[in-house]
């Protein structure tokens, strides 16, 4: 009846996961009780859970990412403490548990922190920048979000029911085959990533279609902000790479569930094929993450330097070049496989070539700052920190792209330091910049600047203290994923790294404090005009937070940086454009399809993990019925009446007119130079 699931699946003998799981459950329960008692539940259901508005969905993606960041960081600090302690001793984490922790850390940070964060920001900002009302398929967008949440939920369930994978974040066979990993850990890993992978793929299809097909009138491709270009490149990569991941995991699942021989070491299986397939997805994946971050830096650097982006077209070209070349370098993840000198040379050269368009981007940002009036707001500080940190990470990457050098440091902490250097310094700094940059657009008030700076310094310094020792340790021969060690020379560096991790903990605490302080002081931090940073692209032309339809009338685009042009003409003429003719606007109706579908997907995934076949069938049938009910709807859209459109847009115009009047007399309260 319950498949493999018995009471012994709950680790009563292991206090750490049990206590952690209990705390998480108490917190979730407390939040739920608070929501119900305060009567917020109908509001949450109506306005958020069933919402198909790209802005709401984007915000929910970011919330998911921030929550999972805390979970992934907990794993990180446990690993760093274990390695700081486990010199000639067992430390406090038994090997079995340590292996689960490093596997969960990588999986969570890539799939449930970095991915939802960039997808959330793309979802939020891209349609606003293109001057449109929503993405191409709004309900599908909600399905994507909730399937991603299902994946995250399944991984967290593994904390208390059963176990998680002990095979690293990519589950290399033959270790991940049923012979060597008979438990449910690898199944938790595979099914949660399969389900969230479908969500990501649907997002990719959705956002690609949006950028290619939906524009405000006159928004030609070469007038799109760079963030839209990087969104396009990133989503093209999702469409081209994620199906490979789905296929690869499907093969591993068939091996595990039905005794197939794809990657086994018997029956003619070929485990190196797994490495090739997984990295044919895996290398594009790092560009899926970092390209949107590059887009954010471009927006931020241009805005806070008060200049158009230097070399806009070369930036477009570099973005698309990275998009293509990223598919030609995957073998550098396993130079030591023994593919031969010629093959290694080809992939080594391709990997060094991809540094060229990235270098073009770095110079473009630097030249954008050159001669500009740079103001060091928190998003700009993250961007500058990125430029320095990412160059260090990039240079060590080029070093690893040279096969003979790679043979020396392969699978050492040098490699681990390299990819933390590019993913923290590239992706995470970028999403933090984007989070602070677009927060006032989403909520109508800015985040507290002082706590933002504290978080910034703790994070950046903490990162260097935590990860520069990694390079030293790698050169001293320390391999990755060691539960304990006996080499005395490593110990001081590992203790230093622990100290850096504690500083990052301080940074995260500062970020949490920042949220509370900002909400408390929201009236003082209010973004009245909708343009808190003197922005250049269209999202700053609408109110903060934007109305559900984004723009009262679709803007007519006549050049690059359309909002900057509109703003300058208004300043020159001393008045806003004449009031447009308002019309009623059709918007897609909210739908619980995504949430209900994910509800069934959660049960399907859990049942597949524990071999509860009747529940699998029931859940799949439920999901199918959900779609049929959705397809049977007669009213798919609702009409925002013209008076409502006019009221909201007039309020936005009034705020800007007030600013213009104040500015013309030279007494602007917001002339923050």
């Amino acid at each position, binding site marked *: 009846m319950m498949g493999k699931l018995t009471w012994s699946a709950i680790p009563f003998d292991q206090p750490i996961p049990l206590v952690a799981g209990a705390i998480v459950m108490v917190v979730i329960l407390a939040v739920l009780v608070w929501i119900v008692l305060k009567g917020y539940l109908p509001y949450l259901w109506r306005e958020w859970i069933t919402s198909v508005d790209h802005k709401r969905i984007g915000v929910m993606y970011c919330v998911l990412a921030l929550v999972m960041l805390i979970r992934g960081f907990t794993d990180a600090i446990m690993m760093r403490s274990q390695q700081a302690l486990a010199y000639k001793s067992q430390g406090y984490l038994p090997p079995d548990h340590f292996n689960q922790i490093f596997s969960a850390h990588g999986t969570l940070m890539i799939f449930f922190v970095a991915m939802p964060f960039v997808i959330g920001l793309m979802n939020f900002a891209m349609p606003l920048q293109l001057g*449109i009302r929503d993405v*191409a*398929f709004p309900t599908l967008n909600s399905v994507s979000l909730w399937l991603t949440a299902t994946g995250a939920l399944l991984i967290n369930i593994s904390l208390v029911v059963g176990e998680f994978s002990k095979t690293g974040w990519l589950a290399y066979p033959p270790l991940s085959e049923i012979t060597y990993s008979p438990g449910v850990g690898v199944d938790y890993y595979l099914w949660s990533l399969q389900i969230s992978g479908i969500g990501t793929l649907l997002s*990719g*299809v959705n956002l*690609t*279609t949006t950028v290619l*097909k*939906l524009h405000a*009138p*006159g928004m030609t491709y*070469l007038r799109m902000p760079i963030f839209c270009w990087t969104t396009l490149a990133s989503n093209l990569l999702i*469409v*081209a*790479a994620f*199906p*490979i991941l*789905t*296929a*690869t995991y*499907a*093969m591993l699942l*068939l091996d595990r569930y*039905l005794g*197939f*021989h*794809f990657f086994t070491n018997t*029956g*003619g*299986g*070929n485990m190196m*094929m797994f490495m090739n*397939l997984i990295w044919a997805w895996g290398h594009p994946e790092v560009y899926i993450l970092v390209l949107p971050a590059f887009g954010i830096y471009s927006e931020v650097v241009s805005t806070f330097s*008060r200049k*158009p*982006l*230097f*070399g*806009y077209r070369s930036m477009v070209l570099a973005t698309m070049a990275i998009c293509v070349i990223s598919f030609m370098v995957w073998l550098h993840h396993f130079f030591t496989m023994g593919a031969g000198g010629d093959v290694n040379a080809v992939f080594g050269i391709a990997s060094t070539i991809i540094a060229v368009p990235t270098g073009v981007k770095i110079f473009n940002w630097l030249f954008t700052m050159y*001669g*500009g009036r740079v103001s060091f707001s928190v998003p700009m500080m993250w961007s500058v920190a990125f430029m320095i940190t990412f160059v260090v990470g990039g240079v060590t990457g080029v070093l690893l792209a040279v096969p003979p050098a790679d043979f020396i440091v392969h699978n050492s902490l040098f490699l681990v330091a390299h990819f933390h250097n590019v993913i923290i310094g590239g992706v995470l700094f970028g999403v933090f910049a984007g989070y602070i940059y677009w927060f006032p657009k989403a909520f109508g008030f800015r985040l507290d600047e002082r706590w933002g700076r504290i978080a910034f310094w703790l994070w950046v310094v903490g990162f260097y203290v935590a990860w520069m020792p990694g390079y030293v340790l790698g050169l001293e021969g320390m391999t990755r994923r060691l539960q304990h060690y006996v080499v005395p020379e490593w110990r001081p560096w590992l203790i230093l790294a622990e100290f850096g991790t504690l500083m990052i903990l301080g940074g995260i605490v500062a970020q949490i404090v920042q949220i509370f302080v900002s909400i408390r002081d929201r009236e003082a931090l209010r973004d009245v005009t909708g343009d808190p940073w*003197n922005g250049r692209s269209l999202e700053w032309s609408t109110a903060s937070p934007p109305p559900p339809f984004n723009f009262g009338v*679709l803007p*007519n685009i*006549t*050049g*690059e*940086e359309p909002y900057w*042009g509109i703003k*300058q003409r208004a*300043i020159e003429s001393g008045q806003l454009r004449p009031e447009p003719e308002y019309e009623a606007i059709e918007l897609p109706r909210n739908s619980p399809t995504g949430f209900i579908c994910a509800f069934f997907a959660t049960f399907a995934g859990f049942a597949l993990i524990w071999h509860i076949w009747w529940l699998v069938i029931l859940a799949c049938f439920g999901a199918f019925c959900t779609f*049929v009910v959705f*397809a*049977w709807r007669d009213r*798919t859209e609702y009409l925002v009446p013209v008076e409502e459109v006019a009221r909201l847009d007039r309020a936005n115009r009034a705020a800007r007119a007030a*600013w213009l009047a104040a*500015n013309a007399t030279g007494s*602007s309260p*917001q*002339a923050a130079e």
Partner: protein
Amino acid sequence: MSGAVERVGAADPYRIGHGTGYQEHTVEHAERGLAAKRIIVGFGFWIFLLSDIVMFSAFFAAFAVLANRTAGGPTGRQLFDLTNVAIETACLLFSSFTCGIASIGARAHNPRMYYGGMAVTFVFGAIFLFLEMHEFAGLVAQGAGPERSAFLSAFFTVVGCHGLHVSLGLLWLLTMVAQVFAKGFRPDILRRVLCFSLFWHALDIIWVALFTIVYLMGAGA
């Protein structure tokens, strides 16, 4: 916001990398509004189909790598019955033709043509599926199931994945018939019929590749 009045682009007099159109008051394309819903839906579904084809290409790659890893078991030459495969191919291609008829019928709002086309498509799709399952059952019965060797694992996966798509397609087909029956030829339902026919034709494209790479080359090897 800026306190000072700034001229457009004034801070970067060279405007490097911005083309000639930066902030000029041209109205080219400005008249063009958003693309029609039918175009957007079709385009989006094409992108999805491309991603599906990428997934198949991974299975094809695995098959190519494992084609000779028979682990002492039977080879494709010993197992494949090309007559059966030829009949399957004919069924699928013919069902694609009738699917085309059905989508013309839908666009013309001609119920008889639509239901007739869909019914024939369903019948031939089901025959295809029956023949494929029959082939699979025969292979398993003679001890050539997917656990026998890596070659057979890859064979069952790539062909079975196509078969799974056909099964889901048949389920979708029935749903579309029911939808038109219940709601008539509404624009949103016509868009779904368009997506369904794209899906069904894409299955043909994949089958042609399967037929060539797996069966013909496998039987000839």
